[in-house]
């Protein structure tokens, strides 16, 4: 990646940011887009007729269109802006037409945000079936085949593990859902929080019904997330109030169409507009170019860590079908200690702990969790080299 890109993220001059799976940094053009809303045309959207409201409404709608095009959904379904991935998944859990006895299939690889919403449905008589990954984080399709029955209404699976970096076989799982056939086909929800920022995504090719992801992990402002729904009529909105209706009488109302149906109340307008700009930014670089850059760095990172004594790497060492989210531990050190030492020694920011994946940590027998280094477009080979040297120094200190 060139110097111009790094110049858009001034903070990388002072430190090494390897916590991209938690949230990415935000480039200057995105900040400018969000600030320009506040400075130049701040107004509520979809309500007033004055010129600021018109400009704000149009830009906010443009942002939805840009995001839709980015995930290959142009013209199909609806892109709804949410607070984050968690809110997007919860909207499905709340609005889906559940019946007592229905089943949800999910996996042990999931982030809590794609786990708790389903676990909570037990109280409504919806059973949860869990597919276990291998210790590397891979799935056997036959496990899904066994788990999906004629009672399965929804299959919820992460596209990329936020702990192990593995890529799930979404297309194949979608095919299994279709094989169930007819109107009872289980719907497929994909947690794209770790995939959409890093991989070229086409919802039509993936074959999913819902795609939830985070704007703040793909250069957008915090407080931005997205839910794409293939069939907006098939989901009841979670929130009711201003901006989402056609008419309201004393005892009835009719919902409007479009994304507004699911975005009751004043949305995060600056955030949405910023996310639209972030998508422009990523598009200008090109998802393929971005993937190539990250793959090179990931290879170096995984191989380098695996060569170090006292370091255990989790997830596949083979870099095919995996992304730059790399978990490891150092014998004799708590992951939090390692994270602290990396920051103190070389200003390297990593995440440590359970990564919101406690069931997976229990399954892998990692009682203190892991240290997680995660990469993005502004990271460099030099940074990876510094990181590896620093980790080695830390291991020598043990």
């Amino acid at each position, binding site marked *: 990646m060139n110097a111009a890109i790094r110049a858009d993220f001034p903070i990388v001059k002072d430190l090494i940011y390897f916590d991209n799976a938690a949230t990415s940094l935000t480039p200057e053009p995105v900040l400018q887009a969000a600030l*320009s809303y506040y400075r*130049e*045309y701040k107004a509520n959207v979809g309500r007033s007729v*004055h*010129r*600021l*409201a*018109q*400009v704000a409404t*149009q*830009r906010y*709608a*443009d942002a939805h269109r840009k995001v839709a095009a980015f995930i290959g959904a142009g013209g199909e379904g609806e892109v709804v802006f949410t607070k984050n991935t968690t809110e997007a998944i919860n909207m499905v859990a709340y609005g889906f037409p559940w019946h007592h006895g229905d089943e949800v299939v999910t996996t042990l690889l999931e982030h809590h945000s794609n786990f708790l919403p389903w676990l909570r449905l037990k109280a409504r008589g919806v059973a949860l079936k869990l597919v276990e990954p291998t210790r590397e984080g891979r799935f056997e399709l036959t496990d899904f085949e066994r788990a999906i029955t004629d009672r399965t209404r929804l299959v919820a699976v992460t596209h990329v593990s936020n702990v192990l970096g593995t890529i799930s076989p979404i297309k194949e799982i979608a095919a299994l859902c279709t094989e169930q056939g007819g109107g009872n086909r289980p719907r497929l929800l994909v947690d794209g929080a770790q995939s959409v920022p890093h991989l070229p995504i086409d919802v039509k090719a993936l074959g999913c019904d819902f795609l939830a992801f985070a704007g703040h992990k793909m250069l957008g402002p915090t407080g931005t997330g997205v839910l794409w729904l293939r069939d907006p009529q098939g989901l009841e909105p979670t929130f009711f109030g201003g901006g989402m209706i056609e008419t309201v009488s004393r005892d009835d109302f009719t919902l409007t169409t479009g994304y507004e149906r699911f975005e009751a109340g004043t949305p995060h307008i600056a955030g949405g507009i910023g996310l639209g700009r972030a998508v422009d930014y990523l598009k200008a670089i090109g998802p393929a170019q971005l993937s190539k850059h990250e793959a090179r760095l990931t290879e170096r990172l995984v191989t380098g860590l695996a060569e170090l004594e006292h370091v255990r790497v989790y997830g596949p060492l083979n870099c095919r079908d995996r992304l730059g989210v790399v978990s490891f531990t150092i014998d004799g050190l708590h992951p939090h200690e390692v994270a602290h030492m990396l920051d103190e020694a070389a200003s390297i920011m990593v995440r440590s702990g359970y990564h919101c994946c406690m069931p997976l940590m229990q399954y892998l027998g990692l009682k203190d969790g892991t240290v997680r280094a995660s990469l993005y477009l502004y990271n460099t080979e030099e940074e990876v080299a510094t990181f590896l040297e620093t980790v080695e120094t830390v291991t020598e200190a043990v």
Partner: protein
Amino acid sequence: MLKEVTCVKYDAGVAKETVHEVVIEEPLVISINGRHFVTAMISPGMAKEFVIGHLFSEGVIKSMKELESFQLDDRTANVIITHPLRVVAAQKLIVTGCGTGSSFLDEAKVPKIHSTARIEAGTASEGVTSLLHSQLHRTTGGVHLVGLFERYMHKYAPLCIVEDVGRHNALDKAIGYGLLRAIDFAKTFVASTGRISSEMALKCAVMNIPLIASRGATTSLAIEVAEKSGLCICGFVRGEKMNVYTHAERLAESTCG
């Protein structure tokens, strides 16, 4: 483009109710940065091309990068251009303020065309002739046609032929069509069925189109604009005949020597 209406036909003192096809004319509101800019009466279709062409040829924007958002909502085109608070006023800027000279034009404000293209008279003539084959033109006689011809290799080929109730509208649509395809207007020429007014000439000058040819006449002010901008105007193009009013050097030597 067409609509059937009833009308009373008079022929040798005999009135007869009948049905006739007329071209549709409808309003299109252009709103810029949330403010009303203009309401144009145009033929249906190519609204995006029209709006973009119009904004360029009227000097509102000078680059596609300045066009940040375009949204067509029924009969309103909502446009956002760079800097949301920029005040946009139609810039009819070329009239002089002194009023004493023979010229109405402020030469400094007339755009200069930069093009080395040489176009054969026969090519310009064929361009005008090709417009007249339009089915719509023959059915109603109620539309203007503009063709934008682009040089490819060593020949000119039609990039688009546009019909509209207004000749300015048709030219704006053709310009918008070219802009959306990022063509080099220095390598084009325009053919038209209508009169070449100063506004038509000015739109060509703004877009760096070196030549306009028409079956119709031209005006004194159009000639003045053309002289100052470097535009070649060919009027009354019919068969092998035409009147070249300005910048005949833009015609290829083999045909104007």
